């Protein structure tokens, strides 16, 4: 057990502190990542890239810093930016999911074309997986693509597609081999959102905003070469992507930051002149969450150490999405309860605006429910924990529906 940082990481820490002292004032506001990056964010991203704080392990020929992967370095960087409350760079679906997928399975041409612009924030991607009839049962996707004269002709519909309203490109899971089995009939295409025949319609969510969309495809043409890996390999590629989606271990930092905000909120909010933090019922809920957050933080340290040692954490990693979203929701629940009736009348100023406490927490409170549904619902996570983590038997299969579904 050793929580101290070795010299190498201390040096990195000192380097980042110096960087933040010099450049920190140029950082955009932390959070609020559900919109297209503005110029300030793009400039900041560029500065981070130049210093190797984002795209650190991406080879230089694709626009990164070309360093060896080192989870401890990544953790130090994340921790230092969080500590300084400085924006740590874009974490959209292109950066966090598609780029690692491309680096793992893409062709040289695909990597050269897409990695650089994506990590610079110039190219925004959306994830075209879910369909109205096939959400959890992702492998059952029915959007079709047929190869005609060197082009894929895409027809069908995607739904709940986050960021599609401002994205430039989509990574699409579609059916290209209808005669093959469910899992073997899928392919993974990369296409422009400006393609003729592609229609995106923002879908208003319960937050009142339109964070996601419906996307309709009518004879949309996609050049044949825009396939990742090959025909019938879509399920394999989708799983590479999902692996990256779920392996983001940064969560504990977010929980800790939220807890700090919550402590401040309960300290400054009063009922009958007594701060809530001194009212036993509120204080007890806060204390429980503080305990849970400490456990969560320690658990993440454990995962980080195992990752650095090349150990597969198994069930310890599989619980992250389920446990993390539940903790997140309990944190935002206490916040809206602390805001109470005074927090109810709020008008969202829109995603581009800086929100007040009431708007931020109320929207988080709702968005946290969305996080339990998106990216593989929590029930699906529990299937995975039970079946892959604890090795419990699967649900008996009924016709074509996969028991485990997404992931």
């Amino acid at each position: 057990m050793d929580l101290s940082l070795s010299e190498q990481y201390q040096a990195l820490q000192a380097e980042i502190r110096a960087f933040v002292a010099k450049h920190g004032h140029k950082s955009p506001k932390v959070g609020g990542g559900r919109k297209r990056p503005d110029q300030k964010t793009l400039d900041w991203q560029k500065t981070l890239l130049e210093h190797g704080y984002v795209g650190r392990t991406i080879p230089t020929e694709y626009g990164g810093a070309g360093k060896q992967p080192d989870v401890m370095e990544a953790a130090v960087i994340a921790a230092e930016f969080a500590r300084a409350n400085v924006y740590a760079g874009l974490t959209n679906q292109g950066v966090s999911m598609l780029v690692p997928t491309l680096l793992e399975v893409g062709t040289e041409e695909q990597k050269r074309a897409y990695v650089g612009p994506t990590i610079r924030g110039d190219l925004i991607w959306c994830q075209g997986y879910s369909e109205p009839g096939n959400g959890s049962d992702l492998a059952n996707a029915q959007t079709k693509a047929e190869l005609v004269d060197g082009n894929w002709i895409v027809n069908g519909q995607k739904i709940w597609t986050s960021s599609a309203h401002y994205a430039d490109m989509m990574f699409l899971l579609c059916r290209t081999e209808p005669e093959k089995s469910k899992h073997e009939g899928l392919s993974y295409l990369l296409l422009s959102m400006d393609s003729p025949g592609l229609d995106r319609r923002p879908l208003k969510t319960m937050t009142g905003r339109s964070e996601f969309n419906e996307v309709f495809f009518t004879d949309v043409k996609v050049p044949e070469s825009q396939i990742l890996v090959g025909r019938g390999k879509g399920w394999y590629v989708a799983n590479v992507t999902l692996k990256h989606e779920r392996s983001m271990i940064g969560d504990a930092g977010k929980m800790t930051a939220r807890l700090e905000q919550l402590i401040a909120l309960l300290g400054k909010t009063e009922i009958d002149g007594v701060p809530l933090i001194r009212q036993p019922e509120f204080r007890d809920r806060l204390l429980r969450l503080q305990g849970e957050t400490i456990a969560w933080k320690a658990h993440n340290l454990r995962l980080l150490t195992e990752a650095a040692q090349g150990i597969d954490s198994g069930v310890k990693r599989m619980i992250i999405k389920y446990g993390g979203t539940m903790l997140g929701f309990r944190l935002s629940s206490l916040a809206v309860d602390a805001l109470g009736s005074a927090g109810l009348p709020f008008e969202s100023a829109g995603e581009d605006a800086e929100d007040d406490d009431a708007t931020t927490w109320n929207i988080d409170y709702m968005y946290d429910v969305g996080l339990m549904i998106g990216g593989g619902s929590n029930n699906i996570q529990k299937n995975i924990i039970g079946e892959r983590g604890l090795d419990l038997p699967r649900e008996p299969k009924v016709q074509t529906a996969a028991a485990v579904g997404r992931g």
Partner: protein
Amino acid sequence: MEFGLSLEQRQFDDSLRDFLKDRLPMEQLRALAEPGGGYDESLWNGLSQLGLHGLIVPERFGGAGLGILDAAVSAEALGFAAAPVPFAGTTVMAPLAFMHSATEAQQDDYLPNVAAGEYRIAVGFAGLAGQTGANNATLDGAKLSGTVTGIMDAGAATHYLIYLRDGTAAVVEANTPGVTATQHRALDRTRPLVDLRFENAPAEILSAANDKLQAARTVLNAGRVVLAADTLGAAQTMLDRAVAFAKERVQFGRVIGSFQGVKYMLADCVTALEPCRGMVWYAGHAQDSLPDEASLTACHTKAHVQDVARDVSRMTTETHGGMGFTDLLGLHFWFKRIAFNRQILGGPERCRQEAAELQGWA
């Protein structure tokens, strides 16, 4: 940075677990639990050979000089086995009390005997720990009087060490005139509770600490972390057994683990319990190396792990159906171990109250 157990820690853990597995098959556990005294000489001597009794005793007094993290790892193994061993009090809190409250000469008198397993010193708190029952004791010179109830790990004690409200510790020999010990079989038959009444009992006074209350708190913190670790081990046994049972038991022509209702209970258990292990390690490490975080993490760890374990003990018993409710399966030993630990050295409510005070919220 390396947040995990060292090779030596894992090896010691393995040998302790192997030993306990070998020595405590269910029939043996039952036999030892029946009298409810929480002690078995041959088990105690076997643990002595592993070097457990001197785990945290400094090397100059014949111990291994290890820390509370090591103690927590061992406690998890003991809880996993529901071992009738007076560990938290005798092996952890007592030597720690000497290390923090006693003079060098007093340490020299007692600690080598603790490390050898010859002295088994139970630790009680007259106040401070937040237990219900009677806890008042006072000193008149070197004579101790009063009543302290609900002392754990005291079934086979050779001495009692009582922390008074001001952080002074008084050590009294068992079987001395002026000391009446009443032993109760408790809910958890693997460990009894002892009530002590003192009437001018001759005591050795430990008051060498610069900050006596802080010394007492250090001992209490360690006790809480170690009990939380014991609870974690007990809950892990229950979860492992429930998972195994869910893969075997067939109803409606299917193994019950294929029912999502069952699967989800177990997924909930592992999702809540696994982070408790990191938490226990962190709290153990904090006792050894992060003094600023020692009290807060001890309070939170005792509270959180006990709450998680209550749910785990309930859901894993439910998973076993009617069988889980029987005595036959013996699952209840772990259920009761968890329930017992919850009430000792302050339950979650008390621990969180202290966490609030530590942060100026109360």
